[in-house]
């Protein structure tokens, strides 16, 4: 999604996550209204807003482990997934450092590591609000690779971004010109559909 500041990209993402309820209309997943299966919808999505949702008093590893445990991962799976995610974002060296000592870019990398805690099979829908903020060129490339891997694995990504993500396949939605459609034609969030078309 592209659009000027304040055009409603973040609100649309929050609506899609189910954090806000739409005044009219709704979202479909595989043809089913997500409002009717709110819990299943929560399980299949990872939403990362612009706040980093990190606790300064916890270490890098503890922060990530908390989100893994909260997602309901089994103990052994949570531990190995956390280490793999830290490695993928080059945060192992910082793993035992309290998050308060991280730079803005490192904080962002830690937050983005939450994407790697689950597989495209269990949590296929990624809702990302300006994911490249504060990332350096190298980290942006790494993120782009992870986004591609997720798409290749059959996942769906909805992202609000100004830049850096043009190379990804998918549809462009300019939120500025977005006219809310009636419910039955509402934005379709279906895995097979979202990947197929390139605008």
């Amino acid at each position, binding site marked *: 999604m592209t659009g000027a500041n304040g055009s409603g990209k973040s609100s649309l993402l*929050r609506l899609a*996550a*189910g*954090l*806000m309820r739409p005044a009219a209309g709704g979202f479909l997943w595989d043809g089913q209204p997500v409002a009717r299966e709110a*819990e299943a919808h*929560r*399980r299949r*999505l990872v*939403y990362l*807003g*612009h*706040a*980093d*949702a*990190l*606790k300064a*008093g*916890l270490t890098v590893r*503890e922060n990530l*482990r*908390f*989100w893994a*445990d*909260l*997602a*309901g991962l*089994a*103990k052994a799976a949570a531990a190995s997934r956390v280490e793999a995610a830290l490695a993928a974002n080059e945060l192992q060296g910082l793993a035992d450092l309290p998050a308060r000592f991280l730079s803005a870019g490192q904080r962002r990398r830690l937050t983005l590591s939450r994407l790697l805690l689950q597989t495209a099979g269990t949590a296929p829908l990624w809702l990302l609000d300006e994911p490249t903020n504060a990332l350096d060129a190298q980290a942006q490339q790494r993120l782009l690779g992870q986004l591609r891997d997720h798409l290749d694995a059959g996942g769906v990504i909805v992202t609000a971004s100004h830049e850096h993500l043009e190379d990804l396949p998918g549809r462009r939605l300019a939120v500025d010109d977005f006219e809310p459609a009636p419910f039955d034609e509402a934005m379709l969030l279906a895995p097979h559909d979202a990947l197929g078309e390139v605008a």
Partner: protein
Amino acid sequence: MSAAFALLRRDLRLSLRQGLDVALVVLFFLAAGILFPFAVGPAPNLLAAIASGVVMVMAALAALLSLDRLYLPDFEDGSLDGLLLSPLPLEVIALVKALAHWLTTGLPLLVAAPALGLILNLPPVAYLPMLTALLLATPMLSLLGGLGAALTLGSRRGGVLITLIILPLYVPVLIFAMAVIDAARLGLGSAAGFLILLAAMLLASLALTPWATAAALRQAA
């Protein structure tokens, strides 16, 4: 279950690492209570008469002071979105948050209460009833306080607003807790009836406040 435990562990860890939070609540409780002998005079009988009331009111105010760290940090740093979207039911989250709050405020107050009782010349027979009443009352302070904290998320002057919303709800808790202590202090016979009422109120808040808190949190998102 393990997700709920992870949340409890995180909240406790954060509170204990910023150990000052817990210490400040206890210090406020003691320091504010110690003001009373200076204000009303050191007459032992007068102090003995008001001691249990002072302990209860100071416990309520100390709990109130710490309510803004219940949901506000999660709200401000974006963690609340993650909690709302977790597979864990929001009612369980509200319950776990209240439990974490009680473990880091109610429980330390329970430990500190005899010290304040000593300073205020509380009669020896009243200690056990006071601790029993506090044991039943302090979880209610956390449960009702959690509701107030959730309701005031995102509002300006949230701290003042919590006070106005929550203090009236604390009144019944105080009344019955005081009845338990006074029954023992004045030798009015068994306090079992009041204890059972207090326990019933605790069970009712355990059953009802998580739902109300969850609804308030959904509105805040």
